[in-house]
């Protein structure tokens, strides 16, 4: 019924140009929250109006002609077929308009390129399919995944209405936290394939490319939560690695920094399983690993190997009674550390606790019951081999 109503609403909208009370028919670019995003918006609007003006002139002439110079009205065809003077005029006028457009655009290019006098630096690494944030010269360093609620709802045939999920696909487990009124330099790179980091409110996106370091900067004017997405196709879960940026007042940010990692995510007081620091630095129990493993599996593995471990025939192997998952544990760990074809390497993108947990989980759930387990310390040992 909801679907039917949606369709009808859409049709009604098209027919009558009405704005429904609850719908979000955004038409235009936002102004954003930095000086640059405002300047980009202004240039965008200016160029848009120039285009509208040219359009009205050209289409106006065309439709005047279509209306008046038609055979059915008895109009006789003139036989003129060219004029060098006219051709020169309508080449020069657009050229002048282009030059006028190029001036502010050039100014903006130079401005956006200038990363000098940055007060802090954050390194952003794109992974399939999450973002890693490292605060250079500061402690925070963490991964930012799609939040669990969106992740559950976005599975094919989940039956969960995305409208019931707050910030569906635009929410993460741990957001990037930054101060306002501070010139922040971002460094972008990637660990596997090319990604692109975009928060529309900052006014730009930048590609994160393996083997390259790209730069960009921003000064955010007002506190708030700003959301964006990966904008370079990076594989099957390209749509599911959002960017969430929390901009805090400077003193609040300092407070957050002082208390890191205990309150790992300022705007997420309930914390996540990872920030609860389960069995950190000591032996884990199997139950602990299984609990953590379930979340790690659903965040990292389920999109290909499916939530129930059944895989996707011909493309993604099943976890259930897989020869690798039920075979020698070292071989499974080795494959996960190195990756294989479409499967990314997990040697850096999850913590050792998470790694041990997901190995233990896959071997003892999803229809498997091998019975063994692995400790984070053993993962550390195998990594250094």
């Amino acid at each position, binding site marked *: 019924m909801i679907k039917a109503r949606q369709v009808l609403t859409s049709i009604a909208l098209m027919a009558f140009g009405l704005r429904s009370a609850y719908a979000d028919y955004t038409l235009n670019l936002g102004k954003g929250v930095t000086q640059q995003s405002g300047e980009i918006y202004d240039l965008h609007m200016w*160029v848009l109006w120039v285009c509208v003006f040219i359009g009205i002139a050209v289409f106006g002439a065309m439709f005047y002609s279509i209306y008046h110079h038609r055979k059915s009205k008895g109009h006789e065809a003139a036989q003129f077929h060219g004029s060098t003077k006219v051709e020169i005029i309508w080449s020069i006028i657009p050229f002048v308009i282009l030059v006028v457009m190029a001036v502010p655009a050039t100014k903006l290019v130079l401005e956006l390129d200038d990363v000098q006098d940055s007060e802090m630096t954050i390194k952003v690494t794109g992974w399939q399919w999450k973002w890693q944030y490292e605060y250079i010269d500061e402690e925070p360093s963490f991964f930012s995944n799609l939040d669990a609620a969106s992740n559950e709802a976005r599975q094919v045939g989940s039956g969960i209405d995305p409208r019931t999920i707050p910030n569906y696909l635009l929410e993460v487990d741990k957001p990037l936290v930054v101060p306002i009124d501070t010139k922040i330099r971002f460094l972008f790179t990637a660990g596997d394939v090319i990604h692109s980091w975009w928060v529309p409110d900052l006014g730009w996106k930048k590609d994160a490319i393996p*083997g390259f370091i790209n730069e960009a900067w921003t000064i955010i004017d007002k506190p708030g939560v700003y959301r964006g997405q990966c904008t370079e196709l990076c594989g099957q879960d390209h749509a599911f690695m959002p960017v969430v940026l929390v901009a805090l007042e400077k003193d609040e940010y300092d407070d957050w920094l002082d208390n890191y990692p205990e309150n790992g995510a300022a705007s997420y007081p309930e914390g996540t399983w990872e920030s609860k620091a389960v069995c950190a630095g000591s032996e884990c129990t199997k139950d602990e690993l299984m609990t953590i493993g379930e979340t790690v599996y659903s965040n990292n593995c389920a999109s290909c190997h499916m939530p129930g471990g059944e895989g996707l025939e011909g493309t993604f192997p099943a976890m259930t009674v897989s020869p690798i998952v039920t075979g020698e544990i070292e071989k499974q760990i080795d494959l996960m550390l190195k990756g294989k074809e479409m499967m990314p390497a997990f040697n850096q993108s999850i913590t050792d606790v998470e790694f041990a947990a997901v190995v233990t989980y896959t071997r003892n759930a999803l229809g498997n019951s091998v019975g063994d387990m692995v400790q984070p310390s053993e993962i550390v040992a195998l990594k250094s081999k």
Partner: protein
Amino acid sequence: MSAVVTEHDDHHDHGPEKGILRWLFTTNHKDIGTLYLVFALAMFFVGGTMAMIIRAELFQPGMQLVEPQFFNSMTTMHALVMVFGAVMPAFVGFANWMIPMMIGAPDMALPRMNNMSFWLLVAGVLILASTLFMEGGAPASGWTLYPPLVLQTGNALPFAVFSVHLLGISSIMGAINIIATIFNMRAPGMTLMKMPLFVWTWLITAFLLIAVMPVFAGAVTMLLTDGFFDTSFFDAAGGGDPVLYQHIFWFFGHPEVYIMILPTFGVASTIIPVFARKPLFGYSAMVVATVAIAFLSFIVWSHHMFTVGMPKAGELYFMYATMLIAIPTGVKIFNWTATMWKGAMTFETPMLFSIAFVVLFTLGGFTGLMMALSPLDYQYHDTYFIVAHFHYTLVPASIFMIQAGAYYWLPKWTGHMYDERLGRLHFWLSAISVNILFFPQHFLGLAGMPRRIPDYAVQFADWNMISSIGAFIYGGSQLLFLYIVIKTIKQGTGEKVSDEVWEDAKKHGLEWTLPSPVPYHTFTTPPKIIPTEHI
């Protein structure tokens, strides 16, 4: 000697072979033109079905129909099939049919190669299509095939690469044939500056093809060796450079988009004067503008990559060079408008499509100008704004003019008139639905929706639903086109069309001096070119 000549003359008017062999072994430009057009139409529906799957999944938020990986295969294959299977072959079909008839030649210069380039095209597209059934699925990294992502493709990668090689060879052979025909087979008196604009645009397109198809073939070959022979052209860990691929690809890719648009311009420049009953305004300016656009297409490629992190000098250069394209493109649009000005217009289906093309292509041009400004592109890049932009320059431009050309020339080819009432219905359905389909995508992009995603945040739901509804109407309307074409080939409206078909068409081109339907062989002796101004 004379006996030989007589005997030859006896066989002069032989028709085509009977049965399937006619189509397999034909060297006749009209048969090969038909093959290209039929193949293009079939692929238009294959690629269109993929687009319908995409729009069905995007109908509402949440994942309802397909897995994300398959969705990515659909966006990739939709683009490859439409570009290499539908749009390019359709224009080659027009070139085969019309160039000899427009320049007074008996056939293409290299008829056997002509046959081979068609069948290589079929082989190439079939290999590409076969990847849909392979382990790991069809390529899913976008039609641009960017590494490193494309190297995660399963078994399909080498097949996709080989398919590109075959398509490239086919296109290059077709282009060589067109150039050889135009340079060597023009009837006496048909000087270059008397050639119809359609011939001119194809001549330039053919040079673009020869210049860039080998570049694309080289790029994908490097992907192949990176994937299977341990080279590191595009792998930073081995000293390579993933961005290098993007430079090579777009050095091919930007001229490639003009390969699809220049013949579109040619068809529009052919049709508009006939229905305005006026000569084309600014013929020489049109030729110069076409050459200028082709030249600029080689020096603007990095505007597809403003976000990869370029030195600012490079960024400024590519921004300025790209903006310059607006000038010759503007000249074309002004000239078409001036051609209509003070004409005596009638609005048969081909003219309706042509007018819609001029208007809607101009909209695509405006968004192109906006994206040329690199600071603005930081926002627009890889969002639905660009999806809207290039679909405006491809669907209501290339596809519309392919269909306009079909309506315009089918009566000449078949001797049957299409059903004008149905043609106009097809036009209005297409022209309205194409805007419902693509116009809201501008809003989606500006509001922040990235391209190539199978699922989206709920604030994008409404415009996506409207866009999908437009897509279904547009897709459905094309079945009407199929029906009209089949009906026209069979018997049309029943009335016999004149040689001219369109009022005073003889003034506009040699093809209208031939009988309708055109005989299997035409201009076996070169026609007399009336020494007027250009035609």
